[in-house]
């Protein structure tokens, strides 16, 4: 029954948008920011993918990054946990501060950055050789956690937070790849949560999912906001409107506009933003 309800416009989601559309009930003076990005530029070889982006990511809020394909959304996201470094010949200028700490300082270990800033990918990628349970705790285990008791606790906690526990609690030994697409994506979220990051980056987490699975993930994002700062890339404008508190619009590697989602979607400052959101291009 629950699933059927979700197929139609999800009442909770609708309510959420309405709530967001009201003037903010408690006007926060200046929300604490988790990331402070200053004059960030990124090159792949000679090609400039990000051009002088400056923006603050608010804590315990969802920031959505929108824009047409190839505008640098994913690159920007990956700069927040230094995953872009996996691409050869990448060069970065500018600074990214995570809780005041420069991520690109020479004494920073990218592995530790990624433990603090977790990531969920477009295509769900549970490890094919591992069971559901092993998939969730593998990050802890490979980072040196030995205590089985601790792993079991974290396993349940992470799966509960990812809203997957009830569906898989009797099948923890089954292959992670035996789950449905939406469940696999939530498994990947649980896996990312298990190492207790401070931030969760999501790179189009729903683009390969059907509307019902998408609704579940959106629900989840809304709940996770209480504990995590979330930055998500999305191609789906309605989704950005439903789930995010702040929206950044990228075009050709530049940050065109950034502000509260309600403002971006109802009264953008820039003509390009309006054209993109109303579907005149992109």
């Amino acid at each position, binding site marked *: 029954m629950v699933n059927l309800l979700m197929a139609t416009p999800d009442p909770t989601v609708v309510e959420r948008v309405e709530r967001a559309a009201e003037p903010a009930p408690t006007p926060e003076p200046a929300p604490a920011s988790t990331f402070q990005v200053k004059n960030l530029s990124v090159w792949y070889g000679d090609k400039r993918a990000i051009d002088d982006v400056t923006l603050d990511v608010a804590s315990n809020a969802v920031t959505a990054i929108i824009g047409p394909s190839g505008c640098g959304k994913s690159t920007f996201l990956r700069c927040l*946990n230094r*995953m872009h470094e*996996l691409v050869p010949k990448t060069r970065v200028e500018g600074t990214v501060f995570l809780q005041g700490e420069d991520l690109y300082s020479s004494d920073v270990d990218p*592995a*530790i*950055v*990624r*433990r*603090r800033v*977790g*990531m969920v*990918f477009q*295509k769900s*990628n549970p*490890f*094919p*050789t591992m069971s559901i349970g092993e998939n969730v705790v*593998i*990050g802890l285990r*490979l*980072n040196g956690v030995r205590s089985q008791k601790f792993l079991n606790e974290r396993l349940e906690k992470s799966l509960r937070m990812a809203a997957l526990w009830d569906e898989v609690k009797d099948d923890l030994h089954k*292959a992670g*790849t035996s789950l449905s697409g939406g469940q696999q994506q939530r498994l*990947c979220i649980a*896996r*990312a949560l298990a*190492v207790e990051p401070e931030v969760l980056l999501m790179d189009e987490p729903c683009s390969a999912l059907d509307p019902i699975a998408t609704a579940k993930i959106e629900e989840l994002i809304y709940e996770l906001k209480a504990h995590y700062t979330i930055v998500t890339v999305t191609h789906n404008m309605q989704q950005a409107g439903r789930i995010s508190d702040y929206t950044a619009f990228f075009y050709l590697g530049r940050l065109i506009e950034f502000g509260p989602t309600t403002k971006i979607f109802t009264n953008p400052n820039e003509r390009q933003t309006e054209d993109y959101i109303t579907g005149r291009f992109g």
Partner: protein
Amino acid sequence: MHSKRADNHTWRTIKSGLASTVAFISALLVIAPLGLVFFHLLVNGASSVNWDFFTKLPTPVGTPGGGMVNAIVGSLELLAFASIIGIPIGVLGGVYLGEYGSARVNSVLRFIADVLNGVPSITWGVVVYGLVVLRFKGFSAYAGGLALGLIMIPLIIRTTEEVVLLVPNGYREAALALGVSRWKTIVHIVIKTASKGIITGILLALARVGGETAPLLFTAFGNRFWNHSLSQPIAALPLQIFTYAISPYDDWHRQAWAGALVLVTGIFCVNVLVRILTRGRTASIV
């Protein structure tokens, strides 16, 4: 548009039939040698494959009976020693090619591995003869194992590299994004995901060197008795077959047939094992 047959329909049917017949015959010709070899080995060797063959030492000329237990055990010892050299270097080299290294360096390494794979196996025997046998003044199990191990290295490098490259990048990214180091990602995620393929490559390499005779001629040399020290010459099944087959004695010929049958069966079993391992290609791709 009309749907009548073209005028040359009959001729085209004949051509098509001809082509499939030729293809079918070619396919038969590929399978035939295997069948013939196996048949011939069974006819000539089966009668001499008995309990004694697997449990007794060779007997002196003219004395009937005896077996090749020393050669069978010797072959296993040589393969074990070859594995100690060939598997770690081959697998780590393949992982390097698949995971590290610049494109330029890798293409050079890949080319070298391919050339090494094409080197005639007797060359390896001569190389090890020069490097080891002459220096230590004697044929030995070490030298034989080293020669076989050197042949295994480029084989395993290439198969390992290929299966490592087949592991989707998403798994590497997922592990790295959990704050797992590069090295642990490779060991626990990449190699684990590719393990079936890597094991397949190792088994195929073992099957290949298990039947090698030439590289052992100048290195392991062969031995009619038990080998009591790895620094002494050692018997190996292919060598023993060679020695017996070129001898003028009938019962040695029979023993050689039996040895060949056992060897081919062993290699056949390894290949069947490989097929079984690679059958479930679903979850873990390789």
